[in-house]
């Protein structure tokens, strides 16, 4: 598999994925949010199929493809438990009250939520972050919990 990335100034980014079968998938991410996906069979010039997705649809499909919702290894009653839980990526936006605060301050506002990891730009993932980790603007928190708990976490201040 080979992935090529190209910038389309003023439009967005273009990714070209060459699959093992010799087909080509072109994904355009517009800077305004929507995605376009094109499927080219073999070496053909015209796409055999195309797809337009909103940002939300693309994330959902992306999560499904990545095996977040159902992973082939998950069997038995573990699967139902996965269904009850939700996994979300929560970004610390500029001006967020919890920016530059400790993680535990935020968690105190929303019991029942687990932070599985923190993605920080240009750095490796912090797995299982310590409670006294100081959050920065731009951090993305991978949050797990019941739907209501995660919603409460997203709305909480510090």
């Amino acid at each position, binding site marked *: 598999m080979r992935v090529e990335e*190209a*910038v*389309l*100034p*003023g*439009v*967005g980014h*273009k990714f070209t994925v060459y699959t093992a079968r010799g087909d080509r998938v*072109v994904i*355009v991410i*517009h*800077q*305004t949010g929507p995605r*376009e996906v*094109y499927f080219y069979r073999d070496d053909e010039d015209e*796409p055999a199929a*195309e797809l*337009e997705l909103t940002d939300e649809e693309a994330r959902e499909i992306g999560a499904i493809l990545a095996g977040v919702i159902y992973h082939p290894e998950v069997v038995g009653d573990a699967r139902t438990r996965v269904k009850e839980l939700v996994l979300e990526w929560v970004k610390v936006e*500029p*001006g967020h009250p919890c*920016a*530059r605060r400790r993680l535990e301050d935020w968690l105190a506002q929303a019991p029942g939520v687990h932070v599985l990891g923190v993605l920080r730009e240009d750095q490796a993932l912090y797995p299982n972050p310590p409670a006294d980790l100081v959050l920065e*603007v*731009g951090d993305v928190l991978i949050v797990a919990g019941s739907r209501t708990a995660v919603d409460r976490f997203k709305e909480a201040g510090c």
Partner: protein
Amino acid sequence: METGGLHPSVLAFALAAAALALAAALAARLRFPALPFYLLAGLLASPWLDPGALEPLPTLGLMLLLFSVGLEFGPDRLSELSKKAIRAGAVDALALFLGAALGLLFGLDLKSAVLFGGVVYISSSAVIAKLIAELHRAAAPESEVVLGVLVFEDLLIALVLALFGGHGGAFGVAASALLVLGFLLAARFLAPRLAALLERVGDEPMLLFGTAFTVGTAVLFHLLGSSEGVGAFLAGVVAAGLGLRDRIERLFFPVRDLAAALFFLAVGAGAVRLLGANAGLALGLALLAVGLKLPLDYLAGRAAGLSHRRGLLAAFYLVPRGEFNLVLGALALAEGQALVAQVAVLLVLFSVPLGALLFRYGPEWTRRR
């Protein structure tokens, strides 16, 4: 008309907004890009619409368009420019020199001839990026080349404007060169601290700061005898250097789209009075400009390694002119070169609809052959 306590500009705005809404609805119904309809709506509404009454919104639209063009520059974007795009951009840049030579041949002085060369040369990255996104051409190989060429064009024309766009003579050129240098140095050395500061600023203050910064920079450049267009463009470059591109795109683009629609409407409404004297000659020169650039851009596409068909499409995509053309036209008018200004406005007026047609039907036409 008796307006009571209401400011006349509010009435003009209501008329303009209604005309734009109808134009946009019609365009959507016909599955056609909206920009040419804004120009035509302006033309049709011109007996009732005084573009001056809409100010400062159309001017703000132009400044925000130039700002968003500048936003696409930043050190990261320039280093991402592929060799393909540079080769194509170099071939395409011949249009600037051929256009300027043509201007000298017509007896223009050097400055006006260079402005005319710019009018012939510059395609509209704002219009073309919008057309590519609206008509779902972003995945096509020619779009990558076209957008790369546009980055090249915008950079070259910004240089031309900085060198020849001033109205203060040699002092204007020196002042604008110093200002540009000062802005870029400030952005370079203050960037880390400023970026950290701006991260703590919420969305609304950010929008207002950004607007004040853009318009303020443009006015500063104008006052020092340089081109306000370069100022707005540079404000975008600085904002991109601060790593604000994604946030600003999200915050500014709805405002920009409204103001820019009013700008194109005002261009259409103001074009009627340019159809008078010398209209035939101006139209001929405008046609010549398009005719000069089409084969050059086909060659540029081939230089970037596109196939015959994709090369044709690349040349089609590069037809629409827009924001920089009108900046150059306004400068030429200030120089007393009404003909150059006429060519610039006429070029926008017919190249946007023509380009939109070529965009829309080009892939079908070229497939049959």
